[in-house]
């Protein structure tokens, strides 16, 4: 393993320190328990939007903390969900007096820890709602698994609900909007090569030189199947088809297309793939109205990509376009 680290056990803490020094105008970072919070928190009379999850997916979630998106993010250890005391600290640091919405990706550990935190917070009299995002269509068998995973759609959810909260939408409104986004967003990813968890020191899985994992999860969980490496056209189609069929997206639908790198795939390949996805959607008559391309929901240095489609309407377009000022996303300011 070759990594720019000092000690596997201090990777998250040292990275958070660096992040704090890189963005003093946007965020404050507390280390024990670890919380990334927007610089002007708490914002009075604003619903607090809080998320979190294991580290290793940067810039998610800390890079999405700031005006118009998250009030706080709780980073766990690498690929390990955060603990309830982190979420409780985040709730206390962002309490604007009108409640909080927790955005939780659907993983057993994340759901259990956020659930525990929400119970403890309610006992303290804070109004907390939880929305679980599960946009990964790769998981077909939801009955005998922990269910669909939260992946790329998480970013879109956090941006859109964050914009609404910034405009003063109340907790009921934010929760309803979040459920609407969850219902309308679908994703799928593929991997060419595994990332390496620092404390593990070896790749999480091994693929042959001519093989890809179709439907990979952002912690290296297996997908639908291993298939031979194809052309870019074939790979993009193999992601897009299951997404389109799942919702389903139909001719004439307006969508946001998010083409995401898992960390190790360079932008030259990502733009190439994005172009293919746009072409395939145009052929289907699906109208791409907004797009995002880049490494935003990553899996350490995993080589691979994911596609996310969100069905848009005027409300969602307007909230997507609203100003955002975070380490990873910035427009309109």
């Amino acid at each position, binding site marked *: 393993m070759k990594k720019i680290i000092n000690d596997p056990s201090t990777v998250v803490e040292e990275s958070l320190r660096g992040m704090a020094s890189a963005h003093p105008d946007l965020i404050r970072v507390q280390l024990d*328990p670890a919380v990334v919070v927007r610089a002007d928190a708490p914002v009075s009379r604003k619903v607090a939007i809080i998320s979190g999850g*294991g580290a290793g997916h940067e810039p998610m979630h800390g890079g999405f903390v700031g005006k118009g998106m998250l009030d706080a993010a709780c980073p*766990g*250890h*690498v*690929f*390990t*969900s*955060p*603990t*309830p*005391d982190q979420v409780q600290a985040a709730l206390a640091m962002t309490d604007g007096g009108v409640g909080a919405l927790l955005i939780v990706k659907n*993983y*057993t*550990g994340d759901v*259990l*820890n956020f*659930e*525990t935190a929400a119970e403890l917070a309610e006992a303290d009299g804070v109004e907390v709602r939880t929305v679980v995002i599960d946009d990964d269509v790769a*998981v077909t*068998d939801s009955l*005998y*698994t*922990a269910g669909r*995973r939260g992946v790329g759609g998480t970013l879109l959810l956090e941006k859109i609900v964050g914009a609404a909260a910034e405009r003063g939408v109340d907790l009921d409104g934010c929760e309803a909007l979040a459920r609407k986004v969850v219902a309308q967003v679908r994703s799928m990813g593929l991997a060419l090569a595994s990332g390496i*968890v620092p*404390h*593990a020191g*070896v790749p*999480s899985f091994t693929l042959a030189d001519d093989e890809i994992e179709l439907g990979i*999860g952002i*912690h*290296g*969980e*297996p997908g639908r199947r291993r298939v031979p490496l194809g052309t870019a056209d074939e790979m993009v189609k193999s992601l897009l088809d299951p997404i389109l069929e799942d919702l389903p997206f139909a001719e004439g639908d307006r969508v946001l297309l998010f083409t995401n790198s898992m960390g190790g795939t360079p932008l030259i390949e990502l733009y190439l793939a994005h172009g293919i996805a746009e072409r395939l959607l145009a052929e289907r008559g699906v109208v791409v109205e907004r797009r995002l391309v880049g490494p935003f929901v990553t899996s350490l240095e995993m080589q691979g990509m994911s596609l996310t489609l969100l069905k848009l309407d005027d409300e969602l377009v307007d909230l997507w376009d609203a100003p955002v000022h975070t380490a990873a996303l910035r427009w309109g300011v």
Partner: protein
Amino acid sequence: MRAASQVLEEHRVELSTLDREIGDGDHGENMNRGFGALVTALERDAPDSPGGVLKLAATTLISKVGGAAGPLYGTAFLRAATAVKDAAELDADLVAKALRAALDGVVARGKAELGDKTMVDALLPAVRAAEEAAGRGEDVPTLLKAAAEAAAEGADSTVLLVARKGRASYLGERSVGHLDPGARSTSLLLRTFADVASGVR
């Protein structure tokens, strides 16, 4: 608890390796960090009752372990603490009751059933063995030994199972042939408690 921390330190790599095969490779690290923090907390201010120690274990594990294991083991110890109340010493009946309460807590939180390839596959047979031992009027060391043996057998049985809960469930059939790391850590903990009770450790 100190012995448990030592055992988890010794088995840190093994548990993480098992977890890498069918999960995300951090179970050993997480359990070791949680029990390490528990030992530190006990050194700072050790509660004077078994229930107090169990409650401290619960709150420490919930806040330090992370993953699914934190809330699950935390809930187990919390329910066990509630079951033994403020008893100054634990007899066989209370130990069996505490184990049953721990199991009920894990099932309530994790919603796993026997055969889902989780820690329940180790804990449930252990509870049954403990209750049978208590019914026969065995003492605490004998009861815990029976529970530990049942847990070990239960953990071994997970090798042949298909995972239906947690991150391993995404592997489906591919999870067969691997020992469940949560069942293994449950078995290790019960073995340690049995060893301490009988004076082996």
